[in-house]
């Protein structure tokens, strides 16, 4: 890209440079403060975690909490299982939802009509549905479909939750792609399907990646529906596992800190891989709504 030109931009304001970094450091500290706090606590032993006043640097650093979490794997918190479930649900949701949203987005973008616009407004309304309204009726539907306590039920639910937003992004994404290339291809004798695959999809690649990642993230951290729609521990997802450490008598901070950090890792990996796509995707989707 124009990287050397960008750096030229910074160099021209040398004083601001330092100020930038200072402000950035302060803001970053504010943003990452809780993570650092969790990190610090993951190395404390049981007693020190509850000490008053609290300390940043553990006086007796220990890996006890890490051991407990891993040991807990046998008893009550099989983390590999939970992470695995969350990955299954997350990936399936993102694939499924992106697929449906892309079809719909393409449809809305290319086939405008009064009827279609009406449906678009319907989707806008769907975006505004408050969560608590949906919970119980949705649970009833899942139950009637026989999908209670099945990961697929959760996948379907997450898809439904994410679909309105994803569709909207998708519409913006496809609208940003000029139709002339497709039309040229159609005139040349391609079927619509071929045109879609070979021409449109590659150009929409960025937005598709965004949708996939976004829906994965939302599915990963989702708690209320997972709580209601899952019944046995073998099917639990990561947020339910984390909730185990928050009992009514206490919050097992040392273990919660470790678990939070551990479960943050898969997400960060996935994010870093697809980082560029997110940024460009949100821009495209947002500016052509």
């Amino acid at each position, binding site marked *: 890209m124009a990287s050397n030109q960008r750096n030229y931009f910074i160099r021209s304001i040398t004083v601001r440079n330092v100020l930038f970094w200072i402000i950035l450091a302060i803001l970053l500290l504010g943003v990452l403060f809780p993570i650092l706090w969790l990190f610090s606590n993951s190395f404390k032993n049981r007693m020190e975690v509850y000490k008053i006043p609290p300390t940043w640097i553990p006086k007796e650093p220990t890996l006890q909490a890490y051991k407990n979490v891993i040991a807990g794997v046998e008893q009550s918190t099989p983390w590999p299982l939970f992470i695995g479930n969350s990955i299954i649900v997350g990936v399936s949701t993102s694939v499924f939802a992106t697929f449906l949203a892309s079809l719909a987005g393409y449809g809305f973008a290319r086939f405008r009509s009064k009827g279609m616009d009406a449906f678009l407004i319907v989707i806008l309304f769907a975006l505004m549905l408050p969560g608590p309204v949906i919970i119980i009726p949705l649970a009833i539907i899942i139950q009637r*479909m026989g999908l209670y306590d*099945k990961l697929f039920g959760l996948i379907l639910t997450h898809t439904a939750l994410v679909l309105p937003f994803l569709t909207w992004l998708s519409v913006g994404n496809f609208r940003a792609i000029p139709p002339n290339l497709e039309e040229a291809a159609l005139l040349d004798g391609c079927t619509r399907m071929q045109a879609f*695959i070979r021409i449109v999809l590659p150009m929409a690649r960025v937005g598709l990646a965004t949708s996939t990642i976004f829906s994965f993230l939302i599915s990963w951290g989702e708690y209320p529906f997972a*709580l209601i729609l899952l*019944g046995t*521990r073998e099917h639990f997802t990561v947020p339910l596992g984390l*909730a185990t450490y928050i*009992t*009514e008598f*206490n919050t097992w901070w040392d273990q919660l800190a470790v678990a939070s950090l551990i479960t943050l890792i898969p997400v960060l990996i996935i994010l870093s891989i697809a980082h560029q796509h997110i940024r460009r995707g949100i821009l495209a989707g947002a500016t052509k709504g």
Partner: protein
Amino acid sequence: MKNRMFKVTMFILASWMIIMTAGAVFAEKTAEKPVEVVFWYFGGLDTELRLFPKMIEEFNRQNPGIVVKGTHFPWDARDEKIMTGFRQKNLPDLITRDSMAVADLVGMEILVAFDVEFPDYYNSWEPRFIPEIWNQVSRLDGHKYGIGPYCSVGPMMIFDPELLESLGLEGVPETFEEFLDFARVVKQNGYIGVSLPASKATNDMMIFMDIAYANGGRWLSPDGKKVMVNGPAWVETLKLYDQLNKEGLIQRGAMQTDYVDALKLTVQGKAGLGMGKDWINAIVYDLGAPAEKIFNLTRFPRKKPSPGEYPPVGLTLEGGSDMMMMSTSKVKDAAIKFVDHYASEEVLRNWGGDPVRGRTPASFVAYDNPAFKKYNPFLYQQFKAETLFEDAIEAPNFRGLAEMYHILADAIHEVLLRNTTPQQALNKAQKQCQEVLDRYIQ
């Protein structure tokens, strides 16, 4: 070439989705051969959490034709899971819950009355349990809906005897005035006088209620039609809270401090006195108390003479982990066997201090467990003297209580925020609670 690749991908994608759907639907139809009993349990101490899977496994081994599948959920989720299960028509067969839930669950018509449907089992269990508990807890209109191994009792006060002695305080405060005096001395020496739990958590409200009851107050009039929360006992209790607050005898942020956080202050030596229910002893070591330190547990002080219009209560009894059977269950005959296992002496014994420490058992056999005498000397002594359950009544249990506790919390917060006086706050609460109650008694 690319076209074919695309078609193949689409085909794979589509068939994968179809397979997942089909798999999900078909998997449900495969029958299970042994009888399956679905059991949900909520919350509990760490030791209890480790106990339940073992207990379930032992039962499954001893009863080859039955498989109990137990799942643990966070305490916070107890209302959601049951409510949703109810609406989905997908309730488990057995649950363990606090006895306070009985009124609501009976109202939803989903509980089995053990004395009616399983009289033989019911009679066989009766002699194992302490009569005051057996006859009052988890009952509605005389029918018994829940069986549990322990009761939460309150109100209790906890303190470090060494600390108080070092400050020149002897003995134990027994009246409100003595309590305030103790707190003042503690404060003068640089500690927090009393660590007061005053958040909106239900347990905090129950502690407040316990004190009011111990002073002769009641939620409802005997006929159950009038809310009495603005009676003199309640006002005096709220006045005590107010006084503690005004004199700065409590920790800052009392309205954000729930029963656990308040306890942390006491056990770490930052506050001189603490309050709660009997489970205090169960968690002190987990909250940062030094390893072999003993904290004394005693009944919370009362106002003398008793201000309330009703007889003062010794302790309120709340079943914490009472097993209840859902009337929607299709495998009741199998499920009752598990309830029987839960109510067996071998299992009940576990709550006598080993491995579960800090609970007040409901069964006679648990008190015989030598561990109990060791870890809970105060309660053991009272039990032996047969004064433990003197004047003990069941913690109140009626529909609308959850909402009323929140209204009560509002009233307490209004006073602590110095916006109003105790009597006024409780008068307002009384009106609002009465509105709630009226919906149920029409």
